[in-house]
Each structure stands twice: as structure tokens, then as C-alpha cells.
């Protein structure tokens, strides 16, 4: 049984982010609503950390966004965020000419508490993360 562990409904939290516009806060990236988004407010890299409610195994990251050019994903197993392992090295995403990007990354996170997205570059100066889904299951 696989759940979207990032969703606020399932206890996911987006507390740490390098950009903050109160109209488009990081919570908008995990609220399950595609029409809302977290926006970056200038310069790269930008980071967003999704904290899971419990140690979990995650097999897929699904990302809906606008304008991201290069992204990497990192996982931290400890309750207090510390050292992160790279689970997706820096990867380029196609432009989509300003329309929405929809990406699925197969990853291997065996026991993860925090998932960090690093946006290394954008196709424009400001980019949006509409929805992050982390497919996996909580460990017992």
C-alpha cells in the first residue's frame, strides 16, 4: 500500500524553504491542489524541504511545476535534519514554454524523514512548485 507521504493530510510538512511570499508559501507545494504553488523569489539555487511524519520508504517523487530547469533531490534519514544523501543527481527538465511541467522520478529512499528539493536553475527568473508527491509507505 502506497500513500502520498508529502501531503499535509498524511502529516507531511513544508517548513524550510529559501523563498517566502506569504501569498505563495511552501505549504502550497504539498496541499494537493495543483492550482496553488510555492514560488521562488529570485536567484538560484533554491531549496524546499518536505518533512515526513515518520521514517518512511519512498520509491517515487512526482513533481508538478512551472519553469524549473535543473533539479536534484536529497534525502535525510534522521529526525533532526542533518546530512543529506543525493537520491537524484542534478537533472535537466524540459521547458514546456511556460506551461506546466509534470515529472516522475524513480528514487530509492529506504528510511527517510526529510526530502530536500534543490532547484539549481530556472527557465525564467522565478519558478513555481505546484505539487510534490512522495509515493511510499511509513516504516513500522
Amino acid at each position, binding site marked *: 500500500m502506497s500513500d502520498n507521504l508529502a501531503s499535509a493530510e498524511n502529516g507531511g510538512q513544508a517548513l524550510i524553504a529559501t523563498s*517566502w*511570499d*506569504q501569498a*505563495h508559501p511552501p505549504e502550497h507545494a504539498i496541499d494537493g491542489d*495543483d*492550482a496553488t*504553488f510555492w*514560488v521562488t*523569489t*529570485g*536567484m*538560484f539555487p533554491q531549496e524546499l524541504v518536505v518533512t515526513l511524519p515518520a521514517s518512511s520508504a519512498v520509491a517515487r517523487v512526482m513533481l508538478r511545476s*512551472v*519553469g524549473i530547469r535543473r533539479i536534484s533531490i536529497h534525502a535525510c534519514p534522521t529526525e533532526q535534519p542533518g546530512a543529506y544523501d543525493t537520491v537524484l543527481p542534478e537533472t535537466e527538465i524540459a521547458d514546456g514554454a*511556460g*506551461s*506546466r511541467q509534470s515529472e516522475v522520478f524513480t528514487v530509492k529512499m529506504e528510511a527517510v524523514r526529510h526530502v530536500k528539493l534543490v532547484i539549481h*536553475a530556472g527557465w*525564467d*527568473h*522565478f*519558478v*513555481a512548485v*505546484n505539487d510534490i508527491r512522495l509515493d511510499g509507505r511509513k516504516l513500522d
Partner: protein
Amino acid sequence: MVSALKLRSKVVVLGDSGVGKSAVTQMFHSNGQKFPKNYLMTIGVDFCMKPVPVQVADESRATVELFVFDTAGQDLFAEMAPHYWEGSASLILVYDITRAESFHNLAEWLERISRVVPVESMVSGCVVANKADLRERAEISREAGEAFAQRYGFAFFEASALEHSGIDAPFAHVAAATHARYTDSLAKLTAAVS
């Protein structure tokens, strides 16, 4: 309470050695307190950050933190500079009105940075005619400077770092352009998902 919006932008300052790039940057950063009295060639790059408030139509407040990269104009550092230009969103080209060559070289500086960041993708560009305090020795007219700026869609400013006049205007222009671009981007990002 409404919290202020804070944007960030990387700005590069370009131009020949000795035109006053560092003087302009340092006078901007220090609110006119630190004119470099002795000429000290910039080794590679100098960097500073300054928050610049922008006027917003409604009652909310906005600030743009300008991360200013003042790269060396000396050819000696020509290989290093492009590394510092990556990711820049705005451009400030500086020439010395008493040295025609520094004005004619602006096109070359534009070509150099275009190899790293396409100028047309940038948020804003400015041309600064520095050393306006030496107007009687000017080799380049204001009209020539304005015409060059216009050709590239850049804003034109006359400045004297020595007299701390006209220094803040180009940076205020960059901050306002950044905020305008952000507002425009938000509309596009919202439209992309609706």
C-alpha cells in the same frame, strides 16, 4: 500583520578597468560613505548585498536584495570573470566620460557577458556614464551615451561616484524592474495552472 515581500536579484557591474565600477558599487553599498580614495584594482571580484525598498502600488511593502558582483575590468582576470556572471539577472555597464575608449568597449563587454547569460533574458540593464564631475574633460556626450543605451533597451544614468550623485538611481531602477518582472511572472505562473 502583512509581512513585506523580499525578492533577490544578482546584478553584475561591467566595464573597463578604472572607469569607477568599484567606486560606484561601494558608494551605493555604503550610502555614500566609502569613496575609495586610492585606486585599488579589483582582483577577480568584489561582492556586496544591499536591500533596496521599492514602491508598490498597494499598501504592501517590497524590498529587493541586490547581490552586486563587481568583476575586474583588467584583461588579466578575463578568464575568471565569466564564472561570476552566471545567473545574473541585471547588468550595469559603466564607462568613464573622459575616456572614449571605455565607452567604445561597452559593446565588447556586452558580447562577453552574452556568452554566459543572454542579455535579452535579463530583467534589466543600465548604462552609467561615470565621472560626471569631470564634465569639462568629457570625450563622450550624454547624447551618445543615451543612444547606446537605447539601442539595447537599457536605461541611461549620469553619475559621479566622487560626488555621490546619480549613484543610487541605476540600482533603484534594477530593483523596480525586478519587482515588476516578479509581478509579471506571478501572473504567468498563475495562468499556467488555471
